[in-house]
């Protein structure tokens, strides 16, 4: 933890959920070699892209909604401290208890303490990115508390001791027959004749979790939207596992990244249109729950809300970069990204994968030197711009990717081969004489060409550059030579 009290601070990452162990290109190469993975991802992302396009096409004010969503979020960033104080007051007034966490460890410590107070050694969880980020399940496990993930995809990941690879469908990298195999192997009471029909798999999950839901004493959730002026928390889901966790336990503990606050109840009229259509490609997801503090006679009678910074203040301090905090975790940018579609989410290392993850993760953790694997994430893109077009709150992800590439370069203590090459190029282009000399040298490249392409060049750093690229053979006559000849004749 920092000693600069009150200064924007990067995330703590006690369980390595925001930073992988190897650079993106290394992990991506391995993922690309996995044909099953590519098949599963290709199928799933094609399906969801078509569904999303169809339901977005039904809405003739989609662009107006996107602009409203963008501006509500920009407004939230400009007033974040005040809105959080308002949220705290509203939740407290309605019988909730608000806690503040500087970082992941502190959030986990708070939640472990609250669960211990209830005397329960088991909790049911609704899918939550914030608690994945902090590694809450590991922290609960270390305290002897079993955390049961109840979202179907999250359950698949938990049962197979895997890592999530998508915001919405953490097990998107698994197909139906792999899921059946995991259920047969890991669910004690499963029907041995279970088929891989999706409906049967959903039934198996229902049977597996039913008793746990009905007897759970503590539920843990994340937040999609928290309304500052009414203290209303909203959770968007499909299966009803969320409703179970939010309704049946005596105690509910909700962990939210501070950026999830919105000013007013009527702001949800924008996001409840943008999110389901962008996310699952549905007009509306099956269930959205909202509650304000504690309601006598209905649902948990003890409600705790944990507000988490963990690096968000660091992101907020960047005038453009803070757009990454506008994200509503719909995962549309993952589904349209040509890089994500081929590598899947694990290659990004962080639990925030895809285009938005490539700009959010390095800002949350900061880039600490040239060897930081998160410095490789902003390069996991062809800058094609599909992510911006799909983003329901118009986050300019391509711009942020370029900005994070600049940040990654700045993190170099001493110049790399690429830096030197770029400096040489800058020097060569600075005067007409030097440029013309350079052109003559480059022409020698024709000697390295095979069938019109150059595939490798000797020299430091060249192997890395040409590892994933080739270039056309330089022409026999440059433009400037041609122009000069034309002038003379």
């Amino acid at each position: 933890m920092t000693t600069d009290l009150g200064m924007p601070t990067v995330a703590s990452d006690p369980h390595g959920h925001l930073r992988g162990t190897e650079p993106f290109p290394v992990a991506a190469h391995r993922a690309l070699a996995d044909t099953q993975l590519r098949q599963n991802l290709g199928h799933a992302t094609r399906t969801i892209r078509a569904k999303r396009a169809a339901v977005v096409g039904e809405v003739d004010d989609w662009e107006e909604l996107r602009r409203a969503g963008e501006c509500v979020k920009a407004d939230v960033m400009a007033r974040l401290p005040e809105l959080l104080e308002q949220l705290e007051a509203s939740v407290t007034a309605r019988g909730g208890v608000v806690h503040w966490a500087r970082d992941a460890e502190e959030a986990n410590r708070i939640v472990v303490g609250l669960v211990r107070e209830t005397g329960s050694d088991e909790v049911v969880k609704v899918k939550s990115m914030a608690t994945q980020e902090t590694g809450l399940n590991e922290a609960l496990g270390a305290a002897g508390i079993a955390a049961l993930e109840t979202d179907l995809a999250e359950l698949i990941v938990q049962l197979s001791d895997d890592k999530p690879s998508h915001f919405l469908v953490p097990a998107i990298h698994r197909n139906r027959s792999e899921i059946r195999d995991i259920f047969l192997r890991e669910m004690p009471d499963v029907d041995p004749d279970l088929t891989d029909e999706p409906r049967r798999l959903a039934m198996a999950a229902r049977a597996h979790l039913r008793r746990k839901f009905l007897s759970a004493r503590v539920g843990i959730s994340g937040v999609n939207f928290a309304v500052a002026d009414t203290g209303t928390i909203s959770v968007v889901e499909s299966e009803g596992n969320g409703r179970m966790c939010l309704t049946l336990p005596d105690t509910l503990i909700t962990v939210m990244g501070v950026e999830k606050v919105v000013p007013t109840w009527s702001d949800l009229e924008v996001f409840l249109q943008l999110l389901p259509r962008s996310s699952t490609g549905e007009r509306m997801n099956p269930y959205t729950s909202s509650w304000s503090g504690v309601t006598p006679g209905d649902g948990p009678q003890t409600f705790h809300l944990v507000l988490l910074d963990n690096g968000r203040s660091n992101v907020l301090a960047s005038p453009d970069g803070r757009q990454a905090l506008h994200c509503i975790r719909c995962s549309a940018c993952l589904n349209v990204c040509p890089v994500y579609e081929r590598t899947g989410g694990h290659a990004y290392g962080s639990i925030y994968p895809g285009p938005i993850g490539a700009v959010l993760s390095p800002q949350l953790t900061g880039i600490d030197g040239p060897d930081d694997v998160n410095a490789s994430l902003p390069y996991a893109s062809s800058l094609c711009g599909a992510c911006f077009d799909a983003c329901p709150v118009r986050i300019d992800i391509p711009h942020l990717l370029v900005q994070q590439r600049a940040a990654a370069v700045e993190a170099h203590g001493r110049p790399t081969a690429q830096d030197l090459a770029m400096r040489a190029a800058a020097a060569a282009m600075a005067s007409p004489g030097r440029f013309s000399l350079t052109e003559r040298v480059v022409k020698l490249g024709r000697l390295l060409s095979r069938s019109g392409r150059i595939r490798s060049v000797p020299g430091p750093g060249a192997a890395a550059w040409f590892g994933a690229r080739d270039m056309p053979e330089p022409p026999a006559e440059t433009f400037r030579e041609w122009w000069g000849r034309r002038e003379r004749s």
Partner: protein
Amino acid sequence: MSAREEVLARLRAARDVGGSTVPDVPRDYHRTGVHAPGSAAAVERLTETLTDYRATVHRVGDLDGVPAAIAAVLAGSSSVVAPPGLPGEWLGEVTATVRRDDPPLSVADLDRLDAVVTGAAVAIADTGTFVLDALAPDQGRRAISLVPDHHVCVIRAADVVSSVPEALARLAPDGPLTFVSGPSATSDIELDRVEGVHGPRRLDVVLIVPPRA
């Protein structure tokens, strides 16, 4: 410095560095829907969108048609729970045992019941959604519409709006609200939607649509 003070100090410092200009939010999206609330077109669109997400819609012409419609969809059920304020006559023709959630039933009791009958606060035609308000006496606390496997929801045409903004304008978030769009479903297997997970697997909607004069 407490965590609260420190987080707020960090966020204030960051906000001031990153910029504190509050933008105007353009609200030029549709705040009223294409069909008037309660109109035949709105009810027609609701029927389509509900059906599209695997809810079964039963139309009746007036309140007098409700008891028979409810009795018909509950024909195979032996027990049903009703919120304290659900009109008693709606359940007049039901052959199943009716349990009022008053005093509140235990979760174990609810788990033994086959079905639940509720009203709704508002329904959204664009999205095939109805909203349950836990503070409304004919809708009841959240658990009763969650644990039983079959939900029968009665919606009046007057409560049908076209769009999400119109629905939110009619709702106050004072108590718990549940937006329901079809039976429970998941998209977690290959991103395709399949119905029937933890929430009610069967959803019947009784729509009260008075004939037009």
